[in-house]
């Protein structure tokens, strides 16, 4: 993975830069010592490591603004970071870049039940928002699996999802407003407690921009009343095709479950060995379908889901009879990653999305790739929205296995794109999928996205090396070639 060449001049000025930044963020908010900096050398994509030039942990928006302004003036790169749980390397440091940690922005600023929203600093964890409002029956809907650790600022940067996206949306559908700092140090606000931000939807652009456009210093999210009840159905199928068809039939019947997860045979076995959730070991595919809402609605819809399942050759079907049992059904799915971790020294977690009906074809393709690369793969799948998480099993101590695993992963994502899907459903591009972007986008598509980047950050100082495989200077991207003045297609109707 090639990162932009470090700027030697910046490296040579390191001491001066550290002193200048210390004047902005004094005391323990600046980390220059090598052993203390090492904590920040990687994120959730641990295969890649890089020591940052210096780590800065500001506490106020004014400090963030001053740091950005300073870096802008002196052409120093910046890598923003929340809790560092990114699975795509979004917070991988740069040797010549300031690592800007938002961890000290850890306060919830306002809870407004009348307007059903929470205003929070970006370093607050996803789960802490729910914990702050749950005594009133509220919660914050997006629930990425890292929710105990990941921050809301990181969620905004990555547009994080979770298992309830189909019904409740991703981060972008649950964020109402932002305060952010531009690379120039200017502070702007987008949206707020009202719906729809005025002018261009820059709130939508910022969400999922992976730290390349600005630094978020405050977030307004909407909160929802927790559904009164939830029940889950655990259904085993003799084939992936049957399970896929069942999912399509449920949606065709007008039912949008709160969660609908699928696991393939290797994932079922790994999970069952690990947590003994009572998963059917003879099944080729397993669905966990959760309905939430008032009990009367859940009971009504569960009956229909059971009918539909039986109509699709389900060979086992259990409906949770208690909250404990529902949690047991989920325990296996939630432990799927560590369960796979138990049967293999290492695993790579991929994140493509496909049109659901292409699932059997994609799973067959993966089985073929698995044979080709000589590596095992287990699949968990957000079946409702088509988001696949293949887990590739390998041993990182064998460099050849790591290389094969990465190639295998790239081939899986190519396959996703080939069937009409995308490279990433919720983990982000980061460095992990950066070089695969041309599989999905033409050069013109990518250049247009980079021009949008230029509107925010003309010098390319914010998180360079992420998302885009080839970096162009903004001046070069801005150049226009207008073809001659003669009217083409004189036969076009003009009236």
């Amino acid at each position, binding site marked *: 993975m090639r990162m932009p060449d470090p700027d030697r001049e910046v490296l040579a000025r390191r001491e001066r830069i550290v002193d200048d930044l210390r004047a902005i963020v004094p005391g323990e908010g600046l980390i220059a010592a090598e052993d203390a900096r090492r904590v920040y050398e990687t994120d959730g994509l641990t295969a890649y490591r890089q020591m940052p030039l210096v780590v800065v942990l500001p506490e106020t928006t004014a400090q963030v603004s001053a740091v950005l302004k300073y870096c802008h003036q002196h052409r120093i790169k910046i890598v923003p970071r929340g809790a560092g749980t990114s699975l795509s390397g979004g917070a991988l440091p740069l040797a010549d870049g300031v690592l800007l940690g938002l961890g000290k922005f850890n306060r919830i600023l306002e809870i407004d039940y009348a307007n059903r929203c929470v205003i929070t600093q970006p370093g607050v964890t996803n789960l802490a928002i729910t914990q702050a409002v749950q005594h009133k029956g509220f919660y914050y809907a997006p629930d990425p699996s890292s929710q105990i650790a990941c921050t809301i600022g990181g969620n905004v940067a990555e547009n994080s999802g979770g298992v309830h996206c189909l019904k409740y949306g991703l981060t972008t559908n649950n964020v109402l407003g932002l305060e952010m700092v531009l690379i120039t140090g200017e502070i*702007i606000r987008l949206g*707020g407690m009202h719906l729809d931000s005025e002018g*261009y939807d820059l709130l939508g652009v910022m969400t999922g921009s992976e730290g390349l456009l600005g630094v978020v210093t405050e977030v307004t999210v909407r909160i929802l009343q927790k559904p009164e009840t939830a029940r889950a159905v655990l259904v085993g199928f003799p084939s992936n095709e049957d399970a896929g068809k069942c999912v399509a039939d449920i949606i065709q019947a007008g039912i949008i479950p709160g969660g609908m997860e699928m696991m393939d045979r290797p994932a079922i076995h790994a999970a069952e060995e690990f947590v003994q959730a009572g998963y059917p070991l003879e099944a080729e595919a397993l669905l966990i379908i959760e309905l939430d809402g008032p009990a009367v*609605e859940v009971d009504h819809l569960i009956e229909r889901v059971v009918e539909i399942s039986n109509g699709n050759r389900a060979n086992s079907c259990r409906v949770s009879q208690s909250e404990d049992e529902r949690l047991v059904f989920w325990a296996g799915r939630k432990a799927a990653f560590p369960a796979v971790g138990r049967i293999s020294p290492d695993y790579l977690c991929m994140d493509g999305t496909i049109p659901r009906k292409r699932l059997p074809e994609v799973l067959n393709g993966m089985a073929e790739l698995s044979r080709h690369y000589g590596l095992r793969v287990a699949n968990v799948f957000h079946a409702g929205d088509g988001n696949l998480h293949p887990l590739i099993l390998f041993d990182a101590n064998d460099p050849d296995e790591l290389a094969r695993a990465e190639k295998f992963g790239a081939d899986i994502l190519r396959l996703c794109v080939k069937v009409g899907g995308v490279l990433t459903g919720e983990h982000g591009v980061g460095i992990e999928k950066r070089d695969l972007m041309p599989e999905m986008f033409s050069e013109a598509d990518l250049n247009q996205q980079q021009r949008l980047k230029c509107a925010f950050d003309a010098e390319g100082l914010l998180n360079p090396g992420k998302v885009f495989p080839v970096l162009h200077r903004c001046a070069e991207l801005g150049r226009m070639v207008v073809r001659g003045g003669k009217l083409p*297609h004189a036969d076009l109707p003009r009236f």
Partner: protein
Amino acid sequence: MTSLRPETETDLVDVVQNALAEKTPLELTGTGTKKALGRPMQTAATLDLSGFDTVSLYEPEELVITAGAGARLAEIRHLVSAKGQEFAFEPPDLSRLLGSEHAGTLGGMLACNLSGPRRLKAGAARDHILGVAGVSGRGEAFKAGGRVVKNVTGYDVPKLMAGSFGTLAALTTITFKVLPRAESEETLVLEGLTDDEAVAAMSLAMQSSCEVSGAAHLPSGLAGGTAKTLLRLEGVPPSIAYRRDKLIGILGKAHHVIGPEDSRAQWIAIRDVHPLADGQDRSVWRLSVPPAEGARVTAALALELDARWFYDWAGGLIWIDVPAGADAAASAIRTGLREGHATLIRGSEAVRAAVPVLQPQGPALAALARRVKAAFDPMGIFNPGRMQEGV
């Protein structure tokens, strides 16, 4: 005025390239139903996108539809309705308000980021857009997003197209998420509440677990003499019955319930702004504010202006009409907003030339918006000045 009507992407590229070479700005249009939205423009030609009107993909089981930007909203509604589906954000048909012939096109709906009563639960057009393809103001074809419902690959450029009033790109195809239509609906009606009481009741309803999917209030003047607060419940019948009883228990006020058919008609009237459609000589504003502040905003305006209004989105959306005058009371309306924004939806060309139609932005944000415009349309060839001066 010249009208250019390309039917293929290649022809569209040529048209834009030619306009760039001749430095002639273009007014983007679908079927022209929203021509009166936004600031008046000086353009040399119309770029008519109604030729891009085919549905290239509709897969109900995948919850996805791809159609041309020029496809008629009414036809798309009909198509998905036959499969029991809909756009969950309830795009309005503003034809009665704007005096146009029909609801317009998909492209127009996206360009104005329109949404209806269910916005407060299901989001706006921007929350349901999955992908776009089109030609930038640089005369280059591009695409962004995808056709699956969960995608974070690259910047969310499709969202940027929502509410961009055709100032960034001429779209050819748009991919939207569609969702199952609710099996049934009912509306709980509370009568005789003041605006304050109504906003408080709607807030309480929204804070409950009753999953209210529409919360509107018509003050007495627009409701035949008795104010009506409307709370919609959608879903399967046993669930609606349960939530209705629960909601009545929470609100404990005089009420009656209207059944599915009348409920549907009532919410179409709210969605399409029928209560203010009659006063064609008056200017209509659309205010988006924190919901709990709705009644405070109108109370302040009522002191100064001859205004009529009603609320949607539990108080967060205020439709208000005022005498047109020279400036449609723009400064009074915007001064009263602590947070949020006001958009002039119906106003004469003279008024729309005289006052900012969209909420003015602070200097840093306005400058950023101009840079975003330049990233897609550096020569200002698409709908110049439609949103703000220079954008």
